[in-house]
């Protein structure tokens, strides 16, 4: 079943930092500034996973964050999608095979879109969020 149009026009994102260096997080904030004005597309940052449609996950998933990431994923209401922002979350990046890293993210929760870069540009992050909807539609996750 295809998602109705209003779903694509009102994506609320929640930002989960799972041990990132803060570089990606700053780029996410940059994507929300008036210069990029994501509210044009209905994309809004929420303060709680309960309101979110898209989880923006940054960082390689450190040991303490493992259970938290799973829990936040479960707290998000369906239909939902995970967008990994940055090289760390996608592959481990500079923290690859570190003793403290349990990731990358797709070993913990299902991932819809990978946004590569260290850190990615804000345009790429916005593009990733928009692509997450297409993924949701293909997978037919909606109900």
């Amino acid at each position, binding site marked *: 079943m295809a*998602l*109705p*149009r*209003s*779903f694509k*026009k*009102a994506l609320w994102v929640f930002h989960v930092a799972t041990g990132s260096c803060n570089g990606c997080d700053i780029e996410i904030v940059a994507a929300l500034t*008036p210069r990029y*004005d994501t*509210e*044009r*597309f*209905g994309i809004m*940052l*929420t*303060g*709680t996973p*309960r*309101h979110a*449609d898209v989880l923006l996950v940054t960082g390689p998933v450190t040991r303490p964050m493992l259970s938290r990431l799973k829990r936040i994923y479960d*707290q998000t*209401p*369906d*239909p939902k999608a995970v967008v990994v922002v940055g090289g760390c979350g996608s592959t481990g990046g500079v923290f690859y095979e570190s003793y403290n890293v349990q990731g990358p993210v797709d070993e913990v929760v299902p991932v819809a879109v990978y946004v590569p870069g260290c850190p990615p540009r804000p345009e790429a992050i916005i593009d990733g969020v928009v692509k997450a909807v297409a993924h949701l539609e293909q997978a037919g996750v*909606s109900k």
Partner: protein
Amino acid sequence: MTVGIATAVWGGIVVLFGSGLLGLVYKGFDRKLAAHMQGRIGPPLRQPFYDVTKLMIKENIVPDHAVTWLFNGMPVVSLAAVATILFYLPLGGFAPLFSGYGDLILVLYLLAVPALAMIIGGFAAGSPYATVGAQREMVMLMSYEFPLAITLVSVAWRLATILPGAHTFSLAVIAAHPLWGMVGPLGVIGLVLLLISLLVVTPAELSKIPFDIPEAETEIAGGLLAEYSGRNLAMFYLADAVKMIVMSALVVALFIPYGIAAPLGLAGALGAFIDALFFLVKIFVVIFFTVIVVRVGFARLKVDQVARLFWLPMTAMALLGMIFLALDRIL
């Protein structure tokens, strides 16, 4: 004065759907204009409709720690309470649907119900964020209620001294007799003070910046609403939109109930239509100055600052307004 069952039902349906639509449209204007003021393009005007539709599709999660029936019941209570107020308010030239069955005091109580519903829902969610939000909402409710009550009661009392015998607590009577022309210069000063205090109470009643401490996304993660998702959140969203209409309709009924049809010499259906349009404009002006401009121009206050603001300066101002109205009567 009684209303027929048919009028009540049909009028009720029109008012309910109309106010829901109108609330969402005005919310769209709110977001668009706020974006323009911040140098952004902003979302389309239909954005609130998208948001609500989307929320209706989303899963409705009830947290494990929540008291389920309270948690699910409070969004309904909140929406029902704000919708009920609309039946007692004069809307654009039309008398209140239930005029004769309830008055200003009932409206004052009903206005507190959505806030109380949110408080109970927040406590029922069993999340620390929601609990902190509920406590803050309680503090705020206690702060703004006093100036609000003084304002409403002063207006009704002054009208009672001018029109002895009339049912001056009825909003229809108040809207039909604007006080501005009936009082002396002192009374006008008093009315201005009361109007200002009501306008300052409005954003607090609506939990908008700078008084959005119960929701405060950046510090307590959405506060009261932190655990709400899906359909329940959509209902709170709608209740918020309708409450915006309710508060501004109350300001309009108390202080600017003028129509333009009579001065323009229009009567009948055309006159009613023009008056209804003019009413929408008046509501918009009130929302523009109490919500949109204020929201963009200010930062969030702290909870103690809000309490102090309403308990000292705003209460003093409302009391001063009342004293001026009383002096106007005596002198």
